[in-house]
């Protein structure tokens, strides 16, 4: 001690107890309301106008698709050629297309086609994506190699290109299911990848180990613990890809390899209107707006869900 440079001796300071009263060690302090990932996400989402706007649009689109007659009493197939590319009138709000059909009515009645394609594609990609992603990520090893490489093969082919080829080959069977199948069969690998990455993260958690020590079988662990904790990003991807699938259907129809022109769809209407863009812009613009607004609603919804599920990503932006 004596060798050290002389240091001043400060006094011993003790704060009065009232200043920071002691609280119980590790006291249980739970709020009024329950909270977990989904409950918190819901609380977060319902405070955002973006959520309500996109939810309202999506709801409207669904209702229109299910009950088109509520919105337009005019038969979209009752076309009078003398009305060809006619301007809007009182009963025909958005005018007529080249065949003399009511544009508004066609948009309303085409909704179910677009939405059905979107929904079927999403069901297909989610089912395939979860099967491939979950098994590849959870079991690993050779199964992972096989499943992931299979996914890579599908992933390496642009799904629009693949769908064009499939639709050309099956030109005799063009309907909503076939076109959804053509899109979905090449769109699932992105879902599988997202899920696989998430499962790799979750499967090493201690709670998985604890279940294993209880004797829960691997498959049950996957179903009960791993999958529910990995599914959040899949929901985000799925919501956004629903919009993308609707666009894909429109693209294929526009290219002439989609649905037959006897089927009413936004893509067919846009395709038919391209020749009359200058003379009758309404035939192109209105179906396009319907398409954009619907797709935008799904993408916005996906973004809102993403933000709600991952508050950290939001803070960093």
């Amino acid at each position, binding site marked *: 001690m004596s060798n050290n*440079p*002389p*240091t*001043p*001796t*400060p*006094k*011993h*300071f*003790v*704060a009065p*107890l009232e*200043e*920071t009263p*002691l*609280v*119980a*060690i*590790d*006291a*249980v302090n*739970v*709020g009024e309301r*329950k*909270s*977990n*990932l*989904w*409950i*918190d996400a819901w609380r977060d989402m319902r405070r955002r106008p973006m959520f309500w706007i996109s939810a309202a649009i999506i709801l409207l689109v669904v209702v229109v698709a299910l009950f088109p007659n509520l919105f337009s009493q005019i038969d979209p197939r009752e076309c009078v050629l003398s009305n060809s590319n006619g301007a809007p009138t009182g009963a025909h709000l958005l005018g007529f297309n080249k065949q003399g059909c009511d544009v508004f009515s066609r948009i309303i009645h085409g909704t179910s086609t677009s939405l059905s394609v979107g929904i079927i594609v999403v069901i297909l990609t989610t089912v395939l994506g979860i099967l491939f992603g979950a098994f590849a990520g959870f079991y690993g090893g050779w199964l992972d190699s096989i499943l992931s490489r299979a996914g890579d093969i599908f992933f390496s082919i642009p799904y629009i290109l693949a769908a064009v080829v499939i639709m050309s080959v099956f030109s005799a069977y063009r309907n909503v299911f076939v076109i959804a199948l053509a899109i979905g069969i090449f769109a699932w690998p992105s879902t599988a990848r997202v899920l696989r990455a998430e499962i790799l993260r979750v499967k090493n*958690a*201690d*709670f998985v*180990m*604890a*279940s*294993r*020590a*209880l*004797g*829960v079988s691997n498959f049950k662990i996957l179903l009960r*613990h791993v999958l*529910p*904790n990995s599914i959040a990003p899949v929901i985000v991807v799925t919501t956004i890809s629903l919009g993308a699938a609707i666009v894909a259907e429109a693209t294929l129809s526009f290219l002439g390899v989609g649905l037959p022109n006897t089927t009413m769809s936004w893509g067919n209407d846009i395709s038919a209107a391209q020749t009359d863009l200058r003379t009758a812009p309404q035939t192109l613009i209105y179906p396009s707006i319907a398409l954009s607004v619907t797709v935008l609603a799904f993408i916005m919804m996906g973004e809102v869900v993403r933000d709600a599920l991952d508050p950290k990503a939001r*803070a960093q932006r």
Partner: protein
Amino acid sequence: MTDVTNQNGAAQKPLLEIKDLQVGFKTTEGVVPAVRGVDLTLMPGQTLAIVGESGSGKSTTAHAIINLLPGPGRITGGSIMFDGQELTSFSQKKMEEVRGRQIGFVPQDPMSNLNPVWSIGFQVEETIRANGIATGRKAVREHAIQVLKEAGLADADKRLKQFPHQFSGGMRQRVLIGIGLSSRPKLLIADEPTSALDVTVQRKILDHLETLTRDIGTAVLFITHDLGLAAERAEQLVVMYKGRIVEAGPSKEILQNPVHPYTQRLVAAAPSLASRRIQSGTAATPTHALSDLDYAPTTVTESVDLIAAAEERLEQTSQGPSLEKRPDAIVVKDLTKVYNIRGQGKGKASELVASDNVSFSVAKGTTTALVGESGSGKSTVAKMILRLEDPTSGSIMIDGVDVAPLKGRPLLDLRRRMQPVFQDPYGSLDPLRNIGNTIGEPLQVHKVGDRTSRRERVLELLDQVALPENLITRYPNELSGGQRQRVAIARALALKPDIVVLDEAVSALDVLVQAQILKLLADLQAELELTYLFITHDLAVVRVIADNVCVMQRGRIVEAASTDQVFDSPQEQYTKELLNAIPGAGITLGV
């Protein structure tokens, strides 16, 4: 308080003087105060430690000094005088000049604080250039080599070209200390510099840091949660609680005579100090023991005295048959686990022997601790006993039956009798299942009872681990780390097992919570006649919980004996090193 007169009578100006510092974090619900009026004085060349639990504001205070508060953090009041300059008024740019040049910083986690894509040399040189210590390629390089040499790295010139992944955690921290001290700062802030490292490495690093700073004459501000470590390494101690200083003064005096009830709690609960006190035989009723050992959440002024808990535990075990006469619950013989790992380059596969002919036994109703540093194979042994990993060779006898080859139904029956509790409180519970379902899962899996009887059992278990019944429908993210660990313990106990394997079960918790859980474990053992296998890196904790100790090093058991024998007369050099590395070795506790 400004000018303190030293022994020569000359006035000495404080190097760092913090007055009424207030720091708040902006949230959507307004500003949440994290530091509420901190006063602190540090003389040149002095060492001061801020001690507190997580959330006490100790790190925030340190970060406020060098203006490195995370995102929403702001200094909302007070002054920070450093070397005659008011730091709170400094612009970002001016602060950058102070940071690094006049105040060095050693961060907490050496693993994430070096950029993995740049060589060590590049990162050291970057600091040297940024702080203007040297200019010109050659001079910078020479200086970098000197920094690494000072950091205690042999062949520093070769090491410059290496990348962080080629360095161990201890070596990385040496590099970071070297970087922190490279510009000969007047003050070094070390934020939990060794909490991510093994104890023996921790000791070496701290010794090294002490020598270096003494030579340069740098003042050190330590941030730590370990009271023993703080008292050993710093002359001055500041205890923080809820954003305020509750007690400050000379380390030894505070340790020997803690006045504030919170400090008393800390002193009573710190395992390093408790183990020292048991060691020196001064365990006899500490004067300040608020030893009502009730940890029920209703009591407000509770406290857990580890020594009292340890004594009580000993008393309870001694009531039964003596240790030697108890039948063995677990007998492990020649347990070996070899992993094939992918070799580096040329596709060579190599073998890693994680567990090398490990043999030991655990008597019924007792606790055996498996102690070792990271990579010693202790967790591998635990996983093999739990049958989560298959042994390469050797046998595991549970009550006389070799369980290593068990499959199917018999294995499921074995699992009922043996349950684990893992380390990470944030990973050990499924975040999407409520507490009731989590605790009830074992009953469901093993089809015990019906819905109502399971619910009753869950309530009973919640009561046993001192958690309120209303948690049954709540989710893990509403609970603290300690509470989650209790839920994990409740889940482990659901099937009324005989054996519980605790794999670093208290390592991630704050000392007070840790003491509480240790006490709970001891009580449960007495009540339910449990046999514990306690895996830990912390010898200090072992002293208060275990009857027998097995020390592991590189896959082998190097020493196995009763806890008293290991602590009183360690045979192996490695055990002695571990014992010496328990912080607080140099402190005489006049309690």
